[in-house]
């Protein structure tokens, strides 16, 4: 029977590759693959600067262990990942009634996970080998395989435990008491340790970096924190080994942890079939009804209230906006983003009152990085618009609305969601740096930047979302419905899309920016910095005209259904 499952896995991979190869006859997919491969090659095989320092030593191990701790903590705190248990409708129909033991089925699931893990092992090995040469590539790959497989098993077990407890309540909790107790002890120990070392870290943060480093070193050696970090450090230690003999010594505890996790997953499979069948059938129902994008939504809980109450009368376009905003609120991703914002906000609120706070500074830097990513990639990432509704486009066309209204309101929903998130991050960053004395960028300058973000981000995002929705109207097959595809070719597609979006956006922005600059320069001599106000007005006015023309054109194309 195992042979049949290996056959199934092998031929699934083979046929998928064949299908992708067939698609390469189309120039756009071939170009996407070339771009994707080029990107991967550039990232993985670029030479390390000869003089650059190689990260190594216990600090790297500690930082890596802390990163893994965050990942593991997130997998327990965020919504349980049903995908870890999910089988395709065909698998449920054909494999579950087949004479296959529960254990074999579980191993089949683990074998499938290995396909993704192996790709990750190759990527991480290539990245690590160029940064830290010395250890033979094979040994390093084995180290990564142990680490990533253990983390995958941990995630699977966590999903099973959380799924069982949330599905079966006290009954499920009774069956998972050991797992839950261990997790609670680990969280408790960590909380106690952090509580204990926090004052020392805060005091050191006000001194200098050397003092902070010493305090941090002391913190990770606190008995409770060290005990929680020990297994994580044991998992990453083989990766930092300088020679094969060190590697072998470090591998023994790592492999031990892997085996322990494997046994944990095997013991956790009591409710496996039931949970897996339920998750799979729910997914099959949603896919049948809405396509692959439906996976993004968890339906095992009561939906959150809509974003605002919808009055039965008034301009009907508001209904499309309401629908899009309600959609973004109800996606699992919104919960995770909200949780991350809450944590960042709490950190900033507690630390920014200090005159010089490293914690606030680090949080501010993280917030700004996230904001930068959102400005560039946000329009690709937030898709509660026509891209998410491509499978329902017939329904939208049958509504008594102009095509331009539908396009404008669909894009506005995405733009509003993205803008709110960006502004929340911008405000957090402003607060994080509020008490920091930076002569180059004064508090007033930072306030002006925040004000500019409030004025400029909404129209910029709206235009970017109009372009994304325009792509969905003009090239629906390329944009695809629901969740983005994966793989090198998909990576190339996304690179192409992002590049095309920014080129077109730059062309569109050229006229408003030029006219705004002319207005500013013309008035600056007379009114000084206040010339920015009419300059913004002129720029935004021209942009509004461009957006109106774009909406009219896309609306006409949408109505004709030419895409």
């Amino acid at each position, binding site marked *: 029977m195992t042979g049949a499952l290996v056959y199934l896995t092998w031929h699934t991979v083979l046929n998928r590759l064949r299908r992708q190869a067939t698609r390469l006859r189309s120039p756009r997919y071939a170009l996407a693959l070339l771009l994707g491969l080029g990107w991967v090659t550039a990232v993985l095989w670029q030479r390390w600067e000869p003089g650059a320092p190689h990260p190594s030593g216990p600090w790297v191990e500690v930082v890596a262990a802390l990163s893994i701790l965050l990942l593991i903590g997130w997998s327990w705190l965020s919504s349980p990942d049903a995908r870890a248990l999910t089988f395709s409708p065909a698998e449920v129909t054909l494999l579950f009634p087949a004479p296959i033991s529960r254990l074999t089925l579980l191993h089949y699931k683990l074998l499938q996970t290995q396909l993704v893990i192996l790709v990750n092992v190759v990527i991480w090995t290539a990245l690590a080998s160029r940064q830290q040469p010395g250890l033979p590539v094979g040994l390093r790959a084995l180290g990564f395989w142990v680490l990533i497989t253990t983390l995958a098993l941990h995630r699977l077990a966590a999903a099973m435990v959380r799924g069982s407890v949330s599905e079966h309540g006290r009954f499920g909790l009774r069956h998972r008491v050991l797992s839950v107790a261990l997790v609670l002890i680990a969280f408790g120990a960590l909380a106690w340790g952090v509580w204990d070392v926090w004052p020392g870290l805060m005091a050191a943060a006000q001194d200098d970096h050397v003092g902070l480093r010493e305090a941090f070193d002391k913190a990770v050696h606190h008995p409770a924190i060290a005990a929680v970090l020990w297994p994580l450090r044991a998992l990453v230690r083989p990766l930092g080994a300088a020679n094969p003999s060190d590697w072998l010594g470090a591998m023994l505890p790592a492999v031990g942890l892997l085996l322990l996790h494997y046994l944990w997953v095997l013991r956790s499979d009591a409710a496996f079939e039931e949970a897996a069948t339920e998750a799979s059938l729910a997914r099959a129902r949603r896919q049948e009804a809405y396509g692959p994008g*439906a996976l993004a939504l968890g339906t095992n809980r009561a*939906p959150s209230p809509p974003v605002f109450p919808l009055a039965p009368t008034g301009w009907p376009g508001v209904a499309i906006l309401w*629908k899009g905003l309600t959609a973004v609120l109800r996606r699992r991703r919104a919960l995770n983003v909200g949780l991350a914002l809450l944590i960042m906000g709490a950190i900033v609120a507690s630390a920014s009152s200090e005159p010089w706070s490293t914690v606030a500074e680090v949080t501010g830097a993280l917030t700004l990085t996230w904001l930068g990513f959102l400005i560039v990639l946000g329009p690709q990432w937030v898709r509660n618009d026509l891209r998410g509704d491509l499978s329902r486009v017939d329904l939208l066309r049958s509504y*008594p609305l*102009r095509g331009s209204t539908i396009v404008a309101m669909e894009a506005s929903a995405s733009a509003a969601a993205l803008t709110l998130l960006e502004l929340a991050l911008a405000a957090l960053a402003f607060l994080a740096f509020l008490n920091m004395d930076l002569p180059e960028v004064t508090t007033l300058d930072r306030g002006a930047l925040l004000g500019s973000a409030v004025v400029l981000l909404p129209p910029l995002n709206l235009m970017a979302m109009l372009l994304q929705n325009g792509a969905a109207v003009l090239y629906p097959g390329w944009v695809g419905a629901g969740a983005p595809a994966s793989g090198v070719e998909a990576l190339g597609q996304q690179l192409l899309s992002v590049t095309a979006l920014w080129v077109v956006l730059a062309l569109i922005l050229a006229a408003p920016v030029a006219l705004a600059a002319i207005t500013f320069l013309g008035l600056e001599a007379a009114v000084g910095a206040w010339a920015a106000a009419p300059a913004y007005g002129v720029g935004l006015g021209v942009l509004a005209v461009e957006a109106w023309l774009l909406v009219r054109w896309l609306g006409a194309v949408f109505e004709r259904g030419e895409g």
Partner: protein
Amino acid sequence: MIEVEAFSKLYGDLRAVQSLSFSVQSGEVVGLVGPNGAGKTTTLRSIAGIVRPTEGTIRVAGHDLAREPVAAKRELAFIPDEPQLFEYLTVEEHLRFIGRLYGVADAPQRIPALLEELELTDKRTVLPGELSRGMRQKLAIACGLLHEPRALLLDEPLTGLDPVGIRNMRTTISRRAETGCAVLLSSHLLHLVEEVCSRVLVLVRGQTAAFGTLQEIVTGRPELAGRPLEDVFLQLIGRSGVEQ
């Protein structure tokens, strides 16, 4: 209420519908029947304003669909064979959404009655992903009926419904027609068409093979007199196939 004149639709070189003309009066139920690929769904989708006719005109409640699409669409409802719903709106929110789109001022009063009629009351706060196929179909029907359209387009409306749902659907169609709604119903279930439709339009390869009451259709075909629609339909397909 629904007037179709010289309607043709081409998909590239493929002529899906050719020079189709017919009308559906207020209070009338017209059945649209034909073999697979005859052009039934294309016809319904064109009348619903989803695809544009290549040639010809379509009027709904006096509004030309090409010139006044919003006014025309406000008077009609299209219920497709595969229910298309928003995965992130609950049952009741779907109806509130539709109420706003069509400007139904008394939607809050109409919604409970409609949910009751379609046996969805206890599912009002549930997302469509948790509904069975039949219940999703009922919700799609509820969305179509909320604004009390003057023209109703139904594409295989009984798909996925249980026996009680089928009986209720038949009653709903007849009741809507009695209140003056023009109903165009596409179905392969010929006994349903025979039961609820006053006239039948038989499409074969995008062209009208026959249009009228069953009596009118069999006139000139004495061998079919008194036979059920199924026999008439099979005969028409056979003859049309031979003729073309």
